[in-house]
C-alpha cells in the first residue's frame, strides 16, 4: 500500500492505495465520485476522461498512485453547487445527451479544448473522435460545443422553464 495525497475537486484527500488501483476505481468507489464513468478500460471510449493538472486525460489509463501530488478535477466540479456551466446548458438546449453515460468525459474534454482558444468545427469534431457516443449521433454535441464556444454569455442564460 502506498499513501497518496491528491487534490480532487478542490479538496485534499489522503488515502492508502494499492499500486494497481485504477484512478477511475479510486474516484468512483473510494471517493464516491461516480460522475466519471467506465466504458472500456482500454482507453478507447473516453467515458472516463478527467482533468489531471489542468489537462484532460483518460482516467482508466492512470493508476491512482500516479496522481500523488497532483490536482484532479472531475465532471462534478464543472458546475459544483451552482448553475449549469455554459457548456452544460448548451448540451441541454441541443439535446446533446440521451443516456448521459458518455457525457461527463466529453464535457471534460470539450472544456479543455475550449480553454485553449477558439477551436474550429474541424477541431471540435476531431476532439470528439476520442469519444464514443451511441445515442446522439454526435451532431447535437458538436452544435452544443460550438454554441458554448461562440456565445458563452448567451449560453449562461437560465435553462428553459418547464
Amino acid at each position, binding site marked *: 500500500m502506498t499513501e497518496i495525497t491528491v487534490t480532487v475537486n478542490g479538496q485534499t484527500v489522503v488515502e492508502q492505495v494499492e499500486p494497481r488501483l485504477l484512478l477511475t476505481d479510486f474516484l468512483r468507489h473510494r471517493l464516491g465520485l461516480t460522475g466519471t*464513468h467506465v466504458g472500456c478500460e482500454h482507453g478507447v471510449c473516453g467515458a472516463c476522461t478527467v482533468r489531471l493538472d489542468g489537462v484532460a486525460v483518460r482516467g482508466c489509463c492512470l493508476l491512482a498512485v500516479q496522481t500523488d501530488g497532483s490536482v484532479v478535477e472531475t465532471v462534478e466540479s464543472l*458546475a459544483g453547487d451552482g448553475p449549469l456551466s455554459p457548456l452544460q446548458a448548451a448540451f441541454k438546449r441541443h*439535446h446533446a445527451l440521451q*443516456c448521459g453515460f*458518455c457525457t461527463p468525459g466529453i464535457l471534460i474534454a470539450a472544456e479543455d479544448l475550449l480553454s485553449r482558444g477558439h477551436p474550429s468545427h474541424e477541431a471540435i469534431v476531431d476532439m470528439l473522435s476520442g*469519444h464514443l457516443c*451511441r445515442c446522439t449521433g454526435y451532431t447535437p454535441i*458538436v452544435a452544443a460545443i460550438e454554441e458554448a464556444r461562440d456565445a458563452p454569455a448567451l449560453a449562461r442564460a437560465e435553462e428553459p422553464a*418547464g
Partner: protein
Amino acid sequence: MSATEPWVGRPLPRFEDDVLLRGEGRFLDDLSPVAHTCHAAVVRSQLAHAGIVVDVRAALAAPGVVGVLTGADVMALSRPFPAGIDSGTPQYATAIETVRYVGEPIAVVVARDRYLAEDAAELVDVDYDPLDAVLDPVAAAATAVHDRTFAYGDVTAAMAQADLVLRQTFHVPRFTCTPVECYAVVADWDATEGRLTTWANFQGPFTLHGVAAAALGLRGDRLRLLTPPDSGGSFGTKSSVFAYIVLMGLASRHLRVPVTWTEDRLEHLASSAAATGRTTEVEAGFTADGRLIAVRYDAIEDVGAYVRAPEPATLYRMHGSLTGAYTVPNVGVRNRVVLTNTQPSGLNRGFGGPQLYFGLERTMAIAAKRLGLDPAELARRNLIPADAMPYRTPSGALYDSGDYAACLDHALELADYAGLRTRVEKARADGRLAGIGIACIVEPSISNMGYITLAQTADERALTLPKSGNAEGASVSINPLGGITVRLATTPQGQGHRTVCAQVVADTLGCTPGEVTVMSEMDTASVPWTVASGSYSSRFSGVAVGAVQAAALKLRAKIDAIRAHAGDENLSLRRVAGMAHWNPEGRPAGEEPGLSAVAFWAPPTLDPPDDEDRIASSAAHGFIVDICAVEVERATGQVRVLDYVTVHDAGRLLNPLLADGQVMGGFAHGLAAALYERHVYDESGNLMTASLVDYLTPTAPDIPALRIGHLSSPSPVTALGAKGIGEGNTMSAPACVANAVADAIGRDDVELPLTPPRVWNLLDHGDGG
C-alpha cells in the same frame, strides 16, 4: 383543461439532463443497493467448442475469495432457460460440460473486490478437449433447429407470370449496438425466504423476467427485479442481461452472500447480445412496368450457440411487414434457424428490420436497374397508396396510417433529387465513382407478444395458451400536498420517458410538466407492469404513453368529481389533494378514497396469429424514405457520403426535440452497420473483434450530416397518435448506403460493412492488384 398550447408536441428540453450533466446520474455501478456485497469475476471459455473439466481448488485458496460457482452448482440449482423453440441444446447460466462459444461463462469467482476476483479467476483451471466448431451458418442449414415455411397468396403462380424474376443472396453480418455502459447486476439471495432480489440495468421485455424465474425455479413473485434510475444505453442488448441475473442469482444463492457484477467491455463484446446474422435468398417477380407481384425469402438465421430467449424473435418480429411498403399480394418465406459456435444473439436496434430490408431494398435497386427505371419511380409504382390505409398485408400486419407517396415526394424534394443526379453525372464525367441510393421502409413499432408463436404451427398453437398484445401499466398518484408522482415500467436508457410522461400528465391534469415527478426506476414488486413492459420495438410513445394517459384520465375524472362535489371547478390541485387525503369521508359518492390511479393500456389490434399464420406483428407503422449520394475513392475504396436525407412519418411527435434525437441515433447505428461494424470470428471460432480496438464503432468524424424531414399521419391505434421512431434508420441506412455504393461502382454484390478495403476489392484495378 388549460387554454394554452398543449405540452405534448413541444420540443421541451429534458428534465433528465441536469442530473446527468452534473455527473449525478445513478447508473447501477454507482449505487450500492445492498450492504456487504462481494464482487464477481466470470471465468469464460477460451475455445469455441470443447468438452471441459474444471478445477477450482487453486481459485478457492486465493486471497479474498468467498467461493466459486461452477457448472455443477448451476446444474444442481437451476433449469435451462426456456426458449421459443426446442433446439436440442439446452442453455444454462454457465456451460456445464461443454463450452459452445468463446466467452461463454464457465464459472463465477466471488471475492472481496473485483481485483481479487480476477486474480482468483485466473487460477481456475479449465482443461479443454477441443471439438469441431460450426461457424458457417449456410453450411449448418442442413441441421437447422427450426424450419418453417409460410406462403400467402400464390407465389409460384405469380413468379411464373412475372416478366422479370430476380434471385440474389444477401448477407447481413453480426452487429452489436455497444452501449457505452455495459451490463451490471447485483444479486441478493434470501435463503430464509427462498427469494432473490436483484438489480440490473435490464431493459425488458419482461417476458424475460419469467424466463429468468423459470431458470431459477422461482415463482414470479420470488424474483424481485429492480432497475436503477439511469441506464447507459441499451438499444436492445440489455434485454439479455437476464442471463446474468440468473448467473449472479445462483452465485449469491450458492455462496450465501450478495454478489455485484459489473461487466467489462471485453466481456460485453464476447458474450452479451449481438444481432443475428442472416443469409437470405430473395426471389422477386416483377412485371415489365415494374410492379412487384411476388417475393419469396429463404432465410438462414444465425442465432449463435444457443437459441436464447426471445429468439427466434428476430426472424418473426417483422413477419407482418415481409412485403415492406409495397402492395405485393404474394409473399412466401422459409425461416431456418441454425446454431453456430459464436455468441448467442439478442435484441439489437432494428431487431429483424435491418436483416429484412437489406434483402428487399437491395432487390428493388437491382430490379430498377434491370427494368431501366429510376429507383424512386420503381418505388412509387409499388408503394401502398394512401387511400388503402388501414392496409392489411398478406402476412397479417395492419398498417394503421400513412401517405407513402407524399413522403417519397417530400424526400425527393428535400434531397433535390434531380440536382443530386446532376452532381453524380458530373462526377462520373470526371472519371469519379459516384452513386445514389434510396430505401423506402415501413418502421413497425409496438410488437405483438404473440408473434413468437409463429415459430409453432397452427396445430401446435392450438394446444397451448395463445399469446397476443402489448400491454403496459402505469400509476399516477397525487400526494397530500398536491405533488404528482408517476411510476413507469419502461426502463428507459436515454429516450427521455420521464420528460414525455410529464408532458402527457401535464396536459391531462392541467398542470405544468415541472410539477410532475416521473420515476422510471422499475420494481417488479411495486410498479404496475406486464410481460410486455420495458423498452423495445419503440413501444413507449404508443403503449406506455397510453397507460400513463389512461391513469391520468382516471385521476382527472376523480379530481373533476371532487371539484364538482365542492361546487368549485377551479379548486387547485393542491386543495383537491388536501381534501381527498385529509377528509376522505367528504368524498363524492361512489368514489374510492385516496387520489391515485393505476391503468393498463394496450393497442386494439394485436390478436394472436390466426390459423393461416397471419399476424398483426406490430401495432403502429411509421414510414421512412432515405436518399443518399456517395462518392467512392478509387484508390482507397473509401465511401464518402455526399448527402443523406431521411423523411419520417412517425405519426404525432410527442416531443420533436427527442424524436429527432432518436432519428440521429438510429442513423448513426444504421450507418455503422453500413460502413464500419461487424463481429468477426476466425476459422477456429476465436473472436477477432474482441475489444474496441478491433470492433470499430464510428465516431464524430465518421458520421455524415443528416437532413431530416417529417410528415405526420397520426396513428388511429395509439392513445395520442404517436408511432415508434427509435429504430427506423437502423433498418433503412444499410440498404440505402449499399444501394448508393452499388450504383457508384456498378456491382450488385456489395456486402456489409462497406469498409474501404472491402469496397476496393470490388473495384476493377486493371492489374488485378
